[in-house]
């Protein structure tokens, strides 16, 4: 007898359909697994055999051949266990084959027959929806996450013993419900108002949030750069449902998800010793990197000059395209990677105040050269962080900088941008490339003259010019104006990245 069962294999952060074909016929007792299985999949034979027997089901003493199709793609991990076990049951006529039509399943088996949760349940459910499967069986622990995909009838099952009843139609488990997301609203623990002083950085973060710009903060260590960056996710607009689904999918695929729908944007702060692969993803078994885990959120690079050159350079493509493309054998994998980058740096290697700095010009140049490069091209705003004055540490927190209030202004500004940029592929000002910037930020004669003068005197490069326009546009959006004013350009000019890239020359 031959039986076919559908399951999904996690590849990167998305999943693709795998058909498990099981053939059971008379012959010498054997259990063969073909179709490029890796070690964990091959071991599945032992788990399936023991799980079936321990669940009171029959393991046929016949010649069993299992094929995982498509056969040319390498199969990894234990999530095929359930499909193989059910395939054996169907091929040995212990469950009806018709019950498998239009149904996909996945799960890892323990020897007792219990189902263990797998990574990437959400990606599996999304795959089921894409491939037109109406019903999905997953381990009970994965059910709330998979149920986030509403068009698929997700049922969670606890053990293999009941699968026979289920497929015979003698038992129907409850349809799984998505777990309630935590209450909406800004995380109370990370309110911008808690940060005293740092007015300049707060303003820059507000602009960054409003326009999706990348920021570089410069200042001495230990004055709250991390604290400030951690508050940026709370300033960004709350993620919409589709965005939240994407965030959850990334985290679930990396095995760090909470099983609930993410309602907060991620904040990732990798240490500066991270490798290029850790930052953008990849590897023999491609796993998402930090930039993908920060998708739709914030990637914080503290001590930017200390990061490896290769790691920082690897960020160039994802920051430009919003996605990471990884070649692996004959296949190309795409990881979404649309994050706002906040970088932080000391002003010089010794990090002492200017009057006590002992760095030589050479040391300084080397330090800044490490800071320069492709990443700086994607940074629109440079701001200062400072040693807070003692007086500021005891003052009352002010209302203007409550994250809630800032987020309201940011949301309004983003709405303007979405209206203006509809149909261009860009979602916010920070997404605009040079050509789009010049088309969407038209300058009248007076403003053009102003920019020409500034460009001449400040030696702005072409890209620097575009950056100023983008930031000026966001400042006007924050102010609720469609018309750009001189003041917007002036303020944007003061955030420009000058000196750093030039001093390093």
């Amino acid at each position, binding site marked *: 007898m031959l039986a076919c069962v559908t399951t999904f294999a996690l590849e990167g952060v998305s999943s693709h359909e795998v058909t498990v074909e099981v053939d059971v016929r008379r012959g010498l007792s054997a259990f063969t697994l073909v179709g490029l299985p890796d070690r964990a999949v091959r071991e599945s034979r032992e788990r399936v055999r023991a799980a079936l027997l321990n669940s009171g089901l029959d393991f046929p003493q016949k010649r069993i051949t299992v094929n995982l199709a498509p056969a040319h793609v390498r199969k990894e991990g234990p999530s095929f266990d359930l499909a193989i076990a059910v395939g054996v049951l169907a091929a040995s006529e212990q469950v009806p084959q018709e019950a498998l039509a239009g149904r996909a399943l996945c799960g890892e088996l323990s020897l007792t027959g219990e189902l263990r949760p797998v990574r990437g349940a959400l990606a599996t459910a999304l795959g089921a929806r894409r491939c037109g499967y109406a019903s999905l069986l997953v381990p009970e622990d994965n059910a709330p996450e998979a149920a986030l995909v509403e068009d698929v009838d997700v049922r969670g099952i606890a053990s293999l013993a009941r699968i026979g009843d289920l497929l015979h139609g003698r038992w129907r488990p409850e349809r799984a419900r998505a777990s309630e997301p935590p209450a909406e609203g800004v995380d109370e623990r990370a309110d911008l108002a808690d940060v005293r002083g740092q007015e300049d950085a707060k*303003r820059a973060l507000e602009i960054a949030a409003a326009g999706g710009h990348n920021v570089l903060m410069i200042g001495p260590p230990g004055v709250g750069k991390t604290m400030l960056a951690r508050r940026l996710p709370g300033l960004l607009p709350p993620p919409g449902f589709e965005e939240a689904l994407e965030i959850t999918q990334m985290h679930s695929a990396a095995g760090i998800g909470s099983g609930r729908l993410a309602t907060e944007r991620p904040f990732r702060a990798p240490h500066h010793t991270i490798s290029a692969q850790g930052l953008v993803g990849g590897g023999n078994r491609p796993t998402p990197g930090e930039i993908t885990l920060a998708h739709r959120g914030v990637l914080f690079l503290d001590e930017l000059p200390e990061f490896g050159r290769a790691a920082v350079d690897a960020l160039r493509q994802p920051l430009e395209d919003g996605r990471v493309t990884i070649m692996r054998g004959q296949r190309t994998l795409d990881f979404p990677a649309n994050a706002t980058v906040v970088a932080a740096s000391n*002003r010089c290697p010794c990090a002492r105040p200017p009057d006590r700095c002992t760095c030589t010009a050479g040391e300084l140049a080397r330090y800044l050269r490490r800071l320069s490069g492709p990443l700086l091209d994607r940074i629109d705003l440079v701001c200062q962080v400072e040693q807070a004055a003692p007086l500021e540490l005891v003052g009352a927190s002010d209302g203007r900088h409550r994250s809630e209030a800032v987020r309201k202004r940011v949301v309004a500004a983003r709405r303007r941008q979405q209206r203006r940029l509809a149909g261009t592929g860009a979602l916010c000002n920070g997404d605009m490339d040079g050509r789009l910037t010049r088309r969407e930020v038209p300058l009248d004669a007076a403003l053009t003259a102003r920019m020409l003068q500034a460009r001449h005197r400040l030696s702005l490069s072409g890209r620097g010019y575009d950056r100023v326009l983008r930031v000026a546009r966001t400042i006007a959006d924050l102010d609720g104006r469609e018309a750009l004013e001189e003041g917007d350009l002036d303020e944007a000019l003061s955030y420009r990245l000058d000196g750093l890239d030039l001093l390093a020359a």
Partner: protein
Amino acid sequence: MNGWDACDACLRRAFLVAMLAGRIAGLLGRPTTRVAGLLALTERDLVAAVAGPRADAVLEALDARDLERDRRAAREGGVLAICRHSSDYPPLLEDLADAPAVLFMAGERSTLARLHEEPAVAIVGTRAPSPYGREVAYSLGRGLAAAGVPVVSGLALGIDATAHRGCLAGGGLPVAVLACGPDVVYPRRHRGLHREVRERGLVLSELPPGTHPFRWSFPARNRIMAGLARLTVVVEAADPSGSLITSDFARDLGRSVAAVPGHVTSRIARGTNGLLRDGAIPVTGPADVLDELFGAGARAVPPTPQSPPPEPDDPLLRRVLYAAERHELVAAVAADARTSVAAARAALGRLESDGYLVRRDLGGWERALGPP
């Protein structure tokens, strides 16, 4: 007038140095005055010393060089070449044993004449000065310029740039001597300053257009600065440092060396205080320099014609301008000018692009010339 009247022999020598630049860099480790001895060698000796077994190949390549084409290319790039046999060649440079065969220059040829008429002063110092050093360098540059004295410096970060800016503010003749071709901007962030000096003064180099700087070309450049100036003032210098190399050259040429006294505890005053101990002329302001050049009281600093520097009309811009001179942090500037951070940022952007302020190398701002 044809700017490229440099003779073939001199041009040949200049291009030989440029062709050997990479090899010289390999031969000399740390930048020292030794480079002067090397550049004083005759063509044959220089090639033998630097190129070793490849000497013949280098000479062959030099023979094959089409000097006419080089002349044409540089003329199109707006660079002039003045050789030792030209009447425009600065006579003071002839004192150097290893005077450059050709001076490549960007700027108006007629300004060279002004270098003949007035004794020039070189102002050199550290690339990472203190606010004190910066202030002194600026006021020296401006005061000397106002008194009609050309100011020679190296367009480097720190003191050099500040001296050039002061000279420009005083309406004087700035002379920048580069360690690379006169058309190459190094460091790159001085693009704007390079342009202003070229427009209102001279940018000089012994290296042909397009040559990039080498470690040895900085001390080599220093000998030209020392050679062009009647007097060299060192404003803040560590020990050892490039500025002390310049003062060594000046002393070897028998020119006056002056230094600005600094804090005895400061690292970047060790060089200048050491010079003073060894008998350099102490300088507290432009008047000291003028007294030394022309005799006591013979020439005074004119009551600064461009002082106070121009200021914007807008009261907020003015408040921010004053505040920016005193503070390095935007938040502090905003508090001092009694305005919001956003408004202070806008005002700073405005003041910079209007030319009232320039960013300092290490953070903060300083007053600039103002709109032209």
